[in-house]
């Protein structure tokens, strides 16, 4: 891993990182800080700017403004030295279908001047040793994804950047990749930067989260910090939802919920629950369900990104 492997503090830091494509701003003043040894889940809906950010982190595209620092050094001007400590899988794996799995790894091994044993090591790590002699054109999607991961792991990087690594995988494949990614910091001291558009995808593996929406960073911190941001709300079941909604909105409550689903009222205390209940019952609306609850992480994430969309 070289010097990069011993870096403490933030492995990735971006300062006011911005990328514009014509009039459109894909990434807007991003200040990321990814701690060493973490699994950093980089979340956002499709088109939020995740892949553009990752491409800037890897030097594939130049920022319109701001700076990327990897292992404490600016990427600009130190691209080759800095990337020595980085392994990446950006979107779908880049593989040569006319070559076997082993030969595909050998292409990158030759480019990096690594020993032949690095191939065996990477193949074993992703459980692809047995299939490594097969031509990649005959690989399933899951096998291709695992080989892509092996490519990223080949140089034993200190930082592993994975862009939607479970895209297109079946549940078993997702579970497998998830387990592998979670073990990397523990077993090999790697820092993992993992992008996804699904919170459920990363919440079991990530120690830290960054949430991006419309190119802006909406949240950054640990899972616990995100949990602490969750408020409470009142879950309401009535026999006349539309009437109940009108009454509550008229009384100044904020109400959410689609037709044929429970109503969510922005109330947080038992006293609020009692007031809501009284208002509805006195107006002749039957209340059959009333509960104060905390939204899930997924809902908090969706709320954050929906706000950014507005």
């Amino acid at each position, binding site marked *: 891993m070289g010097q990069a492997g011993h870096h403490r503090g933030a492995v990735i830091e971006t300062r006011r990182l911005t990328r514009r494509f014509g009039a459109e701003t894909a990434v807007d003043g991003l200040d990321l800080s990814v701690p060493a040894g973490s699994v950093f889940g980089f979340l956002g809906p499709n088109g939020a700017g995740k892949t553009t950010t990752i491409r800037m982190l*890897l030097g*594939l*595209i130049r920022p319109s403004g701001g700076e990327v620092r990897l292992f404490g050094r600016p990427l600009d001007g130190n691209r080759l030295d800095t*990337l020595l400590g980085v392994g990446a899988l950006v979107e*779908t794996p880049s593989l040569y279908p*006319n*070559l076997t799995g082993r030969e595909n790894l050998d292409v990158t091994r*030759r480019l990096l001047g690594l020993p032949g044993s690095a191939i065996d090591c990477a193949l074993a790590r992703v459980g692809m040793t047995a299939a490594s002699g097969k031509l990649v054109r005959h690989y399933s999607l899951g096998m291709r994804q695992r080989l892509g991961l092996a490519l990223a792991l080949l140089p034993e990087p200190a930082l592993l950047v994975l862009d939607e690594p479970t895209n297109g995988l079946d549940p078993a494949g997702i579970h497998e990749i998830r387990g592998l990614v979670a073990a990397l910091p523990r077993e090999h001291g790697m820092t993992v930067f993992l992008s996804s558009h699904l919170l459920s995808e990363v919440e079991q593996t990530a120690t830290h989260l960054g949430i991006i929406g419309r190119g802006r960073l909406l949240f950054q911190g640990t899972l616990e910090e995100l949990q602490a941001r969750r408020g409470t709300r009142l879950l309401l079941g009535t026999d006349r939802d539309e009437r109940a909604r009108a009454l509550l909105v008229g009384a100044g409550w904020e109400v959410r919920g689609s037709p044929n689903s429970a109503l969510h009222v922005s109330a947080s205390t038992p006293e609020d629950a009692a007031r809501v209940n009284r208002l509805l019952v006195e107006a002749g609306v039957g209340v059959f369900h009333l509960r104060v609850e905390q939204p899930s992480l997924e809902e908090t994430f969706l709320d954050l990104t929906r706000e950014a969309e507005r």
Partner: protein
Amino acid sequence: MTRLLRAVGAEMLKTRRTLAVWMTVLTPMVVCSIQLVILLRWGKPVGTEKLDAWKTSISQCNLLWVLLVLPLFITLETALLAHAEHAEKQWKHLFALPVPRWAFYAAKWLVGAGLVLLGQIFLVIGEIAIGYLAGWLEPALGFGPFPPFWWTVRILSLAYLISLIVLSIHTWVALRFHSFTVAVGVGMAAAVANAMVNSSEDALHFFPWLLPGNALHHAEAIAWLPWALTVGIVGGIALAVAGGWDVTRRDVL
């Protein structure tokens, strides 16, 4: 230098089981097969006052090669080599590696040059082989026992060196544009233009795709061979550097 050698090694590995390698054998084989059919249908001595049967046959073969086939061969080789990277969006993997971007471009150019050279070597072998075969099947053609090996090598070497500028143009087009159609289209347009501007005295000196063909026509005597070699080699290297600069500074979107 080490980085370049590594990149060339990786590039060579990528050509395994590819049409690009098969083309180096198949293309000269097609040209030589056509020449064999022509010889056998001719059926009488093929030599002239100036050139014996060997040189006449090889010159005819070379003419077909350099005027029509070589530009298309270079087009296809460079397009196939570049397509290997464009097809599965390899650039996002390659350019994220701690390897200088120019090394990828230079390796691509060198392997392209190597494949074209291989094709020319097979052409020399094929031209001599069909001479022997035609002479054995039809002794009246007048092929002697000793083919002009070094004469053939000299002419095709000149054509090869002059065609480096064409290689640089097509390497740039193929790597710069993702579309296989664009890469092949430029080569086909050049081949058509070759036929159209062939009679223009000015074009003979400046149209890159015509230069190798004219080196063959005039290799014995012409004064502008040094000019053609200069354009081919120096122009080829200059364009390779310029193309590499253009392609490697681009964003990988």
